[in-house]
């Protein structure tokens, strides 16, 4: 996934959720930006799982503990509660079986942190409603035919999935188009309309 400005903000939100010296598994660690940030600011014991070989090789060359693997296939090899936190940043929508992946995250980590682009954002709705076209935005730059994002969901959809999996939402944050946190006092429908990104802290 390409890293852009709003996404960097979501990494900061993720980092804020993780206490120092935690054991962290970053699923879909990309070029290692989050792991590096966590190691520098929180001295975590961090590991990564990344699909793209290029991403993995770059991470390892920078001294990060990352293995090549597929979130859909390789999570089963990790032991129960082997990590304090398992992070899935901007990757859920690209997995083949998001429900299974989320289930695995909750099994492997004492806590799971999931961030994803909200498909309920008003720009997305606007694009479909008015233009009749699949949305292509700054944060979702792919056309429908070449997108790796095969399972989009809205914030509401995600909350439903969490309920289905028996996961408790400990904390949730929505970020608007400028990467600003949307006020906690706002109702779900507001988040679902104006949140471009969402970050959830879950446990089971």
């Amino acid at each position, binding site marked *: 996934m390409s890293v852009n400005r709003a996404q960097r903000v979501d990494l900061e939100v993720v980092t804020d959720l993780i206490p120092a010296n935690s054991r962290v598994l970053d699923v879909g660690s990309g070029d290692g930006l989050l792991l590096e940030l966590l190691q520098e600011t929180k001295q975590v*014991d961090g*590991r990564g799982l990344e699909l793209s*070989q290029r991403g*993995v*090789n770059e*991470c*390892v*060359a*920078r*001294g*990060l*503990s*990352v*293995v*090549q*693997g597929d979130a859909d296939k*390789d999570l089963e*090899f*990790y*032991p129960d509660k*082997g990590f304090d936190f398992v992070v899935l940043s901007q990757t859920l929508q690209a997995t083949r079986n998001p429900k299974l992946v989320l289930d695995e995250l909750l099994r492997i980590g004492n806590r799971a942190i999931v961030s994803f682009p909200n498909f309920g954002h008003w720009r997305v709705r606007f694009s479909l409603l008015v233009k009749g076209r699949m949305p292509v935005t700054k944060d979702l730059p792919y056309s429908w035919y070449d997108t790796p994002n095969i399972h989009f969901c809205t914030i509401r959809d995600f909350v439903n999935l969490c309920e289905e999996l028996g996961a408790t939402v400990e904390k949730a944050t929505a970020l608007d188009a400028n990467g600003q946190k949307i006020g906690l006092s706002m109702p779900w429908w507001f988040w679902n309309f104006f949140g471009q990104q969402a970050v959830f802290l879950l446990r089971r």
Partner: protein
Amino acid sequence: MAAQRAARTNDEADHPSSPVLQFGPDKPLKLDAGTFLAPFQIAYQTYGTLNDARSNAILVCHALTGDQHVANTNPVTGKPGWWEVLIGPGKIIDTNRFFVICSNVVGGCLGSTGPASTNPTTGKPYGLDLPIITIRDMVRAQTMLIDHFGIEKLFCVLGGSMGGMQVLEWAASHSERVFCVLPIATGARHSSQNIAFHEVGRQAVMADPEWHGGKYLDFGKRPEKGLAVARMAAHITYLSEAALHRKFGRNLQDREALTFGFDADFQIESYLRHQGMTFVDRFDANSYLYLTRAMDYFDLAADHGGRLADAFAGTKTRFCLVSFTSDWLFPTEESRSIVHALNAAGASVSFVEIETDRGHDAFLLDEPELFAAINGFIASAARARGLSL
């Protein structure tokens, strides 16, 4: 010239050019075969200086036909050390910073006790009287060498292929004595196909009448034809179809047309014959039998109740595994299954697969991505170990 090199190889078995550590009857090597080897010796090379804390030592494990001359001119062949692209002053594994040790494996033929060494009870070469040696035995001997240097914990153990097996064995059986490991182009067990290729090689050696039931040195002979064929077959497995095609295609060797005979019409034939011929000058045939057997017997999961993850239970050692896309001797899946086991054991592990058409032998070559991975891994581990850069 070839005869001289062969004589030199025979000589290296008992009196190597390298320093030798001798263990008397009071310090036998315990063998998996259920016996003890005593006396025995280990020939080794070192590079760089051991620091006062004895914390900067790196052990390099050599592959099947490798030796201890990892970063110096080989005394038998006159060629550069087999990993000089990686190891030396200012190189990725910088001998100005690290104390690098490489020893000839037990069962080898360049100075550590092996089948070509003189059996003290008979005064003749061991031949097949040497007990079968395993990867675990090799590593046990290496721990005795490390003890000799007063090194409690190695900073790193690395190696490819059979060397990688030794690295995994270090991590499994002596994890408290090694901070980080780099097993490259290897597997936690030898596959059926790999055992098959080794058996072809061994049968070629044993079918050579000059082998004399393993006692050829007593007759002043060497089963060169058999060993050359073994090497030719094995060498194919170290390359890839794509690399062979790129290098040789169907090109003819010094001729315009097919000769309608069994000369080496094709370049690839000529190349393999050359590989076979040069190999027999520098390697002992019985040693080839012993070392291929050691690899065949290697099965780390079987040593730990059938579950590979148990081999690494509770390990604090950092791992970095490397495989190559075109390696069909130790394909990526072999490394991946080790990674899965390490993940299950909660170990700290990195794993890179490197895109190349150079096959298994890629680990010995100048592969920038391999070097970048090794460099990143070593540098980060050195920081964690508190070794100054």
